[in-house]
């Protein structure tokens, strides 16, 4: 497989490193080659972009330029990072005036971006290699009931993210199925996790999360899989404060795959979850 510049992002790298551990292990087992680069914050499409759009564009362009200088595409482990980097890439590729303006600033720090690379979300790479995933499973996940939460920025805005469907996403489900588990549909599947609005208005983020979790609880599942660290933090960290005694394990999709590949849960730091993941780990024996 192609070699990528891996882009873990601030939240995974500097707050939830066990997600990075599972991602690196699983991706390299599947044959994905990765190398690091001195990337900065992507920057945050729900935070810094709202602070200053021009600065956000320029910093995003710097990150793209670093990968382009090595002739590699970027592989992102996070919805927010892939959203920013794809949005910036899209803007610069389609607007020459904007590109010239940004390149003038990049030149002052010795960089340049031509617009020659692509940015991939790791889920889109996994979904293109379902047969390899099937072949890598050593444990049966049969009977494990899984709810999928792909998260807003995996698929929207659709003309930039270019996934299968912005309102009825299937990519993550296909991966869960390929791993051998059972996908359980629920009503609020495309509902936001509420993470971003929580930055300023915690109570409203919580109200959105409550809606989402009620819907998942009604569907009856063993765990929820996600592919974004912000969603992970919102679902795993803030479940405890909700009404209705909700306690559903949250797994990064790569954690589920790791368990299916027989990688011990200790090796990927699953004990650091806030929700109790033991029931899932035990169920898979």
């Amino acid at each position, binding site marked *: 497989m192609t070699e990528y510049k891996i882009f*873990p992002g*601030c*939240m995974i*790298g*500097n*707050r939830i*490193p*066990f997600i*990075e*551990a599972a991602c*690196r292990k699983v991706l390299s087992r599947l044959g994905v080659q990765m190398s*690091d680069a*001195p990337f*900065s*914050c992507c*920057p*945050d499409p*729900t*935070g*810094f972009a*709202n*602070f*200053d759009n*021009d*600065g956000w564009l*320029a*910093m995003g362009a*710097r990150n793209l330029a670093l990968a382009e200088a090595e002739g590699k595409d970027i592989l992102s482990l996070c919805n927010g990072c892939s959203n920013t980097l794809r949005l910036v890439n*899209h803007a610069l590729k*389609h607007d020459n005036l904007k590109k010239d303006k940004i390149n003038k*600033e990049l030149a*002052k*720090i010795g*960089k340049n971006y031509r617009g020659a690379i692509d940015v991939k979300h790791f889920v889109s790479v996994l979904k293109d290699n379902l047969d390899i995933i099937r072949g890598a499973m050593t444990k049966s996940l049969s009977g494990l009931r899984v709810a999928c939460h792909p998260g*807003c*920025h995996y698929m*929207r*805005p*659709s*003309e930039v993210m270019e996934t299968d469907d*912005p*309102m009825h996403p299937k990519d993550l489900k296909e991966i869960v199925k390929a791993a051998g588990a059972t996908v359980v549909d629920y009503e609020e599947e*495309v*509902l*936001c996790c*509420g*993470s*971003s*609005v929580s*930055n*300023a*208005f915690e109570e*409203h*983020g919580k*109200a*959105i999360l409550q*809606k989402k979790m009620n819907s998942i609880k009604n569907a009856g599942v063993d765990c929820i899989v996600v592919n974004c660290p912000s969603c992970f933090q919102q679902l795993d960290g803030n479940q405890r404060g909700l009404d209705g005694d909700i306690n559903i394990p949250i797994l990064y999709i790569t954690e589920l795959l790791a368990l299916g590949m027989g990688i011990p849960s200790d*090796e990927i*730091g699953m004990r*650091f979850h806030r929700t109790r993941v033991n029931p899932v780990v035990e169920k898979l024996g």
Partner: protein
Amino acid sequence: MRGLNQQQKKKKKKKKKKIGKPNQKKTHVKKMLSQDFEFRKKVMDMHMGVGELIKYCYTCSRCTDNCPVSAVTDNAYDPRSNIFLSISGLKGVLDAQPPIAVWGCTVCDTCDEVCPQSIELTEIFKLLKNESVKKGDAPEHYYLQAKAIFDSGKAIPPQPAIERRREQLGLPPVVVPDTNEVSTLLRNMGAASKLK
């Protein structure tokens, strides 16, 4: 009767002038209703769509009806109102109160997908928030995150406890960016001047 009422109103007005209290509600409405063409141009420039111009909003309300924040705030956050006022160049939208009226957007991009006119609402909301930051009106979180990025190049700076955990997990150290490059870029783009 009518004449009397008007006289009474005039008296009231005079009284208020004497005390020196401006009629806040009226000032706000006036601001709401005055078009600012420079602001309107900025709104139009946020449109990224390739090869097509921004279209009109006919206030169908699909954005607000599908907005997860509107749903839990009884429309205190109302994308339809924000987009209609913005496209009309009514800069007073930035003064709407309470703060959630501008900052309630959770950036889920749902409205962009359901808009029958393909208006890129989230891009325009981003502009509103950028302008609000300039006025110093943004929630504290946004200034703090920007400061962290300016200082360390990362929204979440490295922490010793996490670095130890990375080691336990057998992960390589985080490759740090050249913070000088990042801060130079942000200074030159004008973002640094908005920090508090």
